[in-house]
């Protein structure tokens, strides 16, 4: 009898738990399958990794099958336009979505005009710049000074991408201090991280864009190794890095990282003393004509996911920082961020 009672309680408990977990699904404006297209072709990069984390939680919360497709930015925009009206296809990407448009890369629409901005989800604080371990440039200031004094400094980034904005900020800093000398900073247009690393190994670049996650092991190699590198600048805000676990990543502790972020390592953005920084932000985008009820439904689901608190540890375990804002707030935040970077670009072009 006891075991029967226990079984009954377990069954009731399970039924209650299931009904609670699927509560959102009962009056859902959307059901079935959800496809998340991401702005990267890679399943090994941070976009896929962040998308996979939020997709797993979203699938559970909404009781939907959620699939992440690594289609790339332009194909993602197209999928959103053609298939996104019902809300069954949504896009997940980072700041590159609007930076590509600011830099005039073909295929990059003005996301604020062409799409509906969804919630921000997370930050990858690992956006970094590196030099060979035996480089004469010990700090970002050394680079600014060298370029200002006529030395050609070659920086390997992907044109029109998130890596390009750091280069533009450097150009702007050189121009502010040594007008006309910004031409001494040469952009070496490279695609993948592999190509950027190779450019450094070959001596074809003096500085490369990379990431804490992807390049940390190279920084631990002995200086006489051709592959050895050194961090010189992390573009995330110091306060963002402060949110990381104290032990950092690999053998690079949080305190070490803070030496490469503002205010210790800083790149001036304006004459008013503003400093440039760039937190690589991940967020959702929807079709422009999506039903507002679906937008609210996703917002509600994600608010609950973040309130439950489990997703935070998933992000931190993968060296990301949770950063949720519901859609209306996210749009304002991203528009401001875009305007900030647009100012840097127009300052360089003046």
């Amino acid at each position: 009898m006891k075991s029967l009672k226990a079984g009954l309680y377990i069954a009731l408990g399970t039924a209650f738990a299931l009904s609670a977990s699927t509560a959102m699904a009962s009056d859902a404006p959307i059901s079935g399958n959800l496809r998340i297209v991401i702005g990267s072709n890679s399943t090994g990069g941070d976009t896929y990794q962040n998308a996979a984390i939020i997709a797993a939680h979203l699938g559970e919360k909404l009781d939907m099958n959620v699939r992440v497709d690594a289609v790339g930015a332009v194909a993602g925009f197209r999928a959103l336009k053609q298939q996104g009206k019902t809300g069954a296809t949504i896009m997940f990407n980072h700041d590159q979505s609007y930076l590509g448009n600011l830099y005039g890369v073909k295929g990059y629409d003005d996301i604020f005009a062409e799409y509906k901005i969804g919630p921000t989800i997370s930050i990858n604080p690992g956006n970094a710049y590196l030099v060979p371990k035996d480089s004469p440039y010990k700090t970002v200031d050394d680079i600014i000074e060298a370029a200002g004094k006529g030395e050609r400094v070659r920086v390997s980034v992907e044109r029109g991408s998130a890596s390009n904005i750091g280069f533009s900020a450097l150009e702007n800093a050189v121009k502010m201090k040594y007008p006309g000398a910004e031409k001494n900073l040469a952009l070496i247009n490279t695609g993948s991280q592999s190509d950027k690393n190779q450019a450094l190994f070959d001596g074809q670049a003096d500085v490369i864009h990379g990431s804490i996650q992807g390049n940390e092991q190279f920084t631990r190699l002995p200086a006489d190794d051709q592959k050895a590198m050194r961090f010189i600048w992390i573009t995330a805000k110091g306060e963002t890095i402060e949110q990381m676990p104290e032990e950092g990543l690999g053998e690079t502790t949080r305190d070490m990282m803070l030496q490469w972020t503002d205010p210790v390592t800083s790149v001036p953005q304006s004459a008013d003393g503003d400093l440039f920084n760039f937190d690589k932000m991940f967020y959702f985008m929807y079709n422009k004509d999506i039903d507002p009820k679906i937008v609210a439904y996703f917002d509600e689901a994600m608010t609950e996911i973040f309130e439950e608190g489990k997703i935070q540890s998933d992000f931190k375990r993968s060296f990301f920082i949770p950063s949720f804002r519901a859609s209306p707030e996210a749009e304002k935040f991203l528009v401001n961020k875009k305007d900030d970077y647009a100012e840097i670009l127009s300052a360089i072009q003046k």
Partner: protein
Amino acid sequence: MEFLALVDISYLLLIFFGVALGIVFGAIPGMTATMALAVCLPLTYSFDLNHSLAFLLALYVGGISGGLVPAILLNIPGTPSSICTTFDGYPMARNGEGERALKIGVVSSLFGGLFSLAILYLFAPLLSDIAIKFSYIEKFLIIFFALTVIASLCQSMLVGIFSGVLGILLSLVGVYDTVKGGNGDIRLITPALEDMLYSGFSLLPVLIGLFGVGAILADAEQGVKEETEGAKLDLLSGRKFDLSAFRGSAVNLVRSSFIGTFVGMLPGVGGSAASVLAYTQEKNFSRDSSMMGKGAPQGVIASESANNGLTGGALIPLLSLGIPGDSTTAILIGAFTLQGVQVGPLFIGENVETWNMMVLSMFIANIVMFVVMFFAIKYIAKVVTVPKYLLYPIIIMMCVSGAYAINYGIMFDVWSLLLFGLFGYIGGKLGLEITPFIIGFILGSSAEIYFVKSLESFGTMTIFFTKSPIALFLWLLIGMSVAFSIYSNKRSKSKTA
């Protein structure tokens, strides 16, 4: 050997199912090892890293190996890296040696896979140091070297080179992607077609269109009678398989496996280049290559040992530099990142247990692949006994499904498939040579990227000759390959005269 304690029944079952599923993906025209990994990657969220890697590596080995089945039996490369298997495999099948060709292919695949695994296990960190000596220039020269195969594979040198150059041209249609280091500009299309052709023509629809749909259209012109394919392709009428097929091929086997491993460890060169290079080397340097292209086992040996040699090779830069060696290992890196594990130059030393488990997984996967394929061949080979009027619609259906799925549901890829099927059929009638065309198409975009990047980086054409001793050595190989092609072309002309 403490890591052996981690081997459990679920680990072994995952490898078995991974290999079996990979073979199915590889054997279906339009489905590839890369696609198999992409589809199955999300399934591994719930596994631990060792089980996840065991499953994905098994898919990789199975997927690369399965491509030989349609290449030999249907003349359709199951994956781009099995294109050279069609050159001799299909003629062997038509001569009643289908089962023999398949078994030669499977044994060669096993050898190539184990050879590259041994190299990976013993020399990975050392080889990654060599791999980084290959800059844009050396990579361009390797691709250029692979392109010289066009000269030795064509019936008429002039038409063959024209076809190859046309292939290169069509591979450049669409955006010069910033992700590849390009400028984002769209080339070779009118604005009206930009929406459809933004990303250009995808390789798989072009490949299976030319080889699959084109051949079916050509057969349809003859009229499909109610006969079984088996009536023409009697599987047992030719020679039976025995190990004597490998007599005199030891050098070929080792050289091709080495080429596969070597090309695999150079990120961005591509798996198709491996089998093309191995095939060319066998054609150019073997004592008797007169039967190659007409059903010579040595062609199947070269192609299959090279493309399986790629599996270990492509893991070298992945595990020693954190850089995937090919498109399939680019998916594999996702398994590491999803588990929060970073791969880089210190990965092997800091993750000895995972490293050993990966090597063990690859070893078991190769053995399972051999057992599954070798003993299933007599049943697999019966596909050619299915009547054409049943077989062809099934092939078309698989091709269309594969083309649609390759880029996650782009309808234009299906139109590409049909367009290139028609192109292959009409081109064949006009005398266009399909093999040089497809080799040009496969290698064209990589050649462009490395050529342009070399010039952007160094600013002078002379750098191609002066960059390094490796570059000079590659020029020597290119020169020898071209000279041999001209010589053999003249010799075959004088024989026919």
